[in-house]
């Protein structure tokens, strides 16, 4: 049983009240957040208010939904009406949205108890959470290590037991990579499965919101709750079917593909863990097939060109006029805007804006952006072809385990390489789930990724669940249970 189901059972069985539950999470945040730095904004009043409403319903004998009263968190780039939403950037300090993101609306309708907003790389640009204006988030397994990024705060909070689950966003691996680093489950849905309305954009054609949870069942429950078509997001389609009901389907005969390219340059401990997992799958009756995806070596530059181009446009609006930070001293409007942006954005964000502007500027558009878009088409075709011979693809999530703090920022390209296993999924718009598959010799978690066909969330969660059942020790859910 997943953590969410356990909490649900306890609430329904009146083993504890939702207020008590929420209070215990808030106390735990008080204790450990100074070290983990997972939360950048804790919202105890709102949380307790919802918790009390849930308690009233339970007391009145009303039925409550699975997510009702379950304490959770949102990444700080998901808009919450009246609650500061900063993308962990100086430029959005003080900004309180006047509307709710669709995902938050859906969860509020289910009386989700939001404990607060969690840390992230500034505007989701980073792989370590260290570009956050509020400082990086620590890894709950070893607080000298990073939680990963960009949704490091959500992963750290879930891994550190200060949220039952959370929603992150994934543009090039920002859900799966920190999930892998923090030993939790992270699902990046198919592009269009979850509404982006209210998600502060980094790269619009790559961004997706998804759950970070302790167990595969939890991921399925949360995904099923948020994957609805939204008329406010033209690119949203909702999900084809609920994933929870098919988690336990037999995977005998399932073809699990391994692309050799994904194993290149991966650290040995990670590679071994993934190949070990492949053996687990064989023991469960699945068939392992190997194939090549040579086009993947271009995925990373394609990703950076497209992501930065879109970001340079998306981030043009932060000009100090309508919301957020504004510089104190200036002379004229142009000067005000330039100063506001130069002071308000961090180095990595500025670097990506400049690169994005460069690849879209006159004379370079064809060579970079247009070419990258064409390659995007080629990569999609290559995946489609691969899925002719397999049902899901098994690869590492990250070529390494969580690195020590302060090691990421020095060389931007070196840092970009950590995304090599995660970005192809975003480029092709496919679903990918990262689940724990072991620990390295220092006890840091290793993650593996299952990639599915477009809108194939049910298949990858089914495969993930079967692995979790076979290897329960690798998952936090059973190792620590729900810490209360």
């Amino acid at each position: 049983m997943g953590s969410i189901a356990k909490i649900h059972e306890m609430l329904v069985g009146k083993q504890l009240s939702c207020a008590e539950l929420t209070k215990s999470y808030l106390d735990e945040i008080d204790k450990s957040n100074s070290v983990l730095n997972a939360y950048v904004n804790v919202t105890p009043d709102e949380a307790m208010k919802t918790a009390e409403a849930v308690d009233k319903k339970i007391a009145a004998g009303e039925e409550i939904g699975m997510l009702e009263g379950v304490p959770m968190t949102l990444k700080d780039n998901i808009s919450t009406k009246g609650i500061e939403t900063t993308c962990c950037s100086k430029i959005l300090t003080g900004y309180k949205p006047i509307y709710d993101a669709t995902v938050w609306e859906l969860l509020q309708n289910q009386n989700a108890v939001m404990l607060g907003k969690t840390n992230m790389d500034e505007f989701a640009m980073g792989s370590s959470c260290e570009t956050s204006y509020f400082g990086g988030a620590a890894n709950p397994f070893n607080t000298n290590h990073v939680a990963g990024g960009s949704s490091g705060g959500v992963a750290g909070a879930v891994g550190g037991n200060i949220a039952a689950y959370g929603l992150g966003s994934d543009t090039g691996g920002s859900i799966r990579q920190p999930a892998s680093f923090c030993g939790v489950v992270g699902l990046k849905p198919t592009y269009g499965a979850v509404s982006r309305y209210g998600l502060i954009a980094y790269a619009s054609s790559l961004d997706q919101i998804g759950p970070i949870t302790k167990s595969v069942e939890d991921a399925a429950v949360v995904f099923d709750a948020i994957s609805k078509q939204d008329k406010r997001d033209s690119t949203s389609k909702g999900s084809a079917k609920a994933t929870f009901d098919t988690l336990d389907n037999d995977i005998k005969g399932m073809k699990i593909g391994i692309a050799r390219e994904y194993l290149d340059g991966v650290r040995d401990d990670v590679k071994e863990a993934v190949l070990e997992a492949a053996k687990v799958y064989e023991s469960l009756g699945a068939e392992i097939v190997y194939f090549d995806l040579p086009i993947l070596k271009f995925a990373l530059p394609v990703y950076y060109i497209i992501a930065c181009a879109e970001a340079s446009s998306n981030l043009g609006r932060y000009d100090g006029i309508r919301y957020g930070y504004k510089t104190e001293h200036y002379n004229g409007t142009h000067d005000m805007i330039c100063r506001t942006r130069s002071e308000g954005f961090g180095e990595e964000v500025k670097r990506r804006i400049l690169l994005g502007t460069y690849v879209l500027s006159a004379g370079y558009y064809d060579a970079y952006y247009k070419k990258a878009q064409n390659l995007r088409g080629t990569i999609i075709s290559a995946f489609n072809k691969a899925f002719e011979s397999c049902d899901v693809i098994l690869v590492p999530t990250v070529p390494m385990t969580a690195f020590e703090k302060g090691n990421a920022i020095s060389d931007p390209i070196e840092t970009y390489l950590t995304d090599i296993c995660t970005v192809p999924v975003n480029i092709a718009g496919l679903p990918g789930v990262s689940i724990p598959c072991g620990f390295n010799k220092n006890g840091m978690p290793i993650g593996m990724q299952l990639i599915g066909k477009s809108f194939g969330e049910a298949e990858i969660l089914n495969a993930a669940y079967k692995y979790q059942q076979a290897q329960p020790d690798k998952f936090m859910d059973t190792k620590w249970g729900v810490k209360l």
Partner: protein
Amino acid sequence: MKYELVSGFETHIELSTKTKIFCGCTTQFGGEPNTHCCPVCIGLPGTLPVLNREVVRFAIKAGLAVHGEIAEVAKMDRKNYCYPDLSKAYQISQLYAPLIIGGYVELSNGRKIRLHHIHIEEDAGKLIHQHGDTYVDYNRGGVPLIEIVSEPDIRSIDEAKEYVEKLQQVMRAIGVSDCKMQEGSMRCDVNISVRPEGTEEFGTRTEIKNMNSINNIAKAMEYEYDRQVDLIESGGKVVQETLRYDDATGTTSSMRSKEDAHDYRYFRDPDLVTINISREEVEQLRAELPELPADRYKRYVEEIGLPEKDAALLTKYRRISEYFDEASKGVKNPKTVSNFIIGQIFRRTETEADKEIFDVPVTPARLNELVKLLDGGKIRNNLAKSTLEKMLDTGKGALDFISESDMAGLDENALLELCKNAVQGNPKAVEDFKNGKEKAIKALVGNVMKNSRGKADAVAAEAKIKEIINNG
């Protein structure tokens, strides 16, 4: 040396849909500042655009009305530039796959001004500069626009004026825009260059931005033409640049500053999906189009036989031609209706704005009724004219002023009696007529008309009077 003017227009027209292009806020003009706004149109982080279906339909209608080709596949692009009136720092527009390709506007001299394309985009907000400070109102931000981009086919200021007028007429006729230049719902960027007459090669062009009246367009073009010719004549070179026209001084000046680097970095907007336009939909929209001003003009001249000048006056504004069509339903001679409108009703609608609205006290049905009385010989022209004036004064119908007896006509005996009375009562006129003064008869006829309260037939009366006088 003589120089030829070469000009192309980029015309922005606000579409009169109920809501903005990407959100449900009203497009109503004016309103208290920032009250026609929502998170989407002020570009709050995380918001997304959803395209208004009606905008696409209106644009297609506009395209059909100017003979454009409707694309099967159209896409939305982002035009990136940072300015306080643009809430997202990009304008959602179309570059790579616009809705309408080609088309033309035909001028009265027979020349066709070719169109390059028409695309849809969003309008920006409004800036008010006061003591150097800038106040921003986003009510207009997100109002749908079409931009009609012409080829450089315009060769004179008169052609330019007519081009703009023709676009106004046709867009109003099909009901996609009110094209009010004074309210900014129609604005032109004018590209202009000159070249020695007889040569083919284009000169370097300048662009005068945001012209908002036909008068100013003419004045600005005249100024810019002279400036360019003078520059070339004196050995200088025209620099390609963007200009603003100063109404007060009647001059153009450069808008360039080192702060605006112009590179719009267009790329496909990833927040919006492809627009596929089926041929069925195009045909359906074509069928919905009303008769276009050019077709109407042709019909008035060729089928109804109105003089060209009258036809042009009636087709300049959509409501007037609709009024004319309704008022002339079933009448024997539509020219009469046209005469009443141009001769009498126009005197009550003096300004262009009045003509555009054409809200006159006499409904077309009532004018129709009046003209039919005339057609049926029930009343005479003079009575019809004076009655129309009364109708215009009061808004009442013809029958409120014309009695049964007015329409009864005169029998032979009554006419004879009136003629006799006229002859007897005006010996001087009779004498003059007998002495060969043909005109004197008119006074006698006038007397009969007056005493018959306009019911008498002037021709019959004249014949009768002559008969009485000749028979002694």
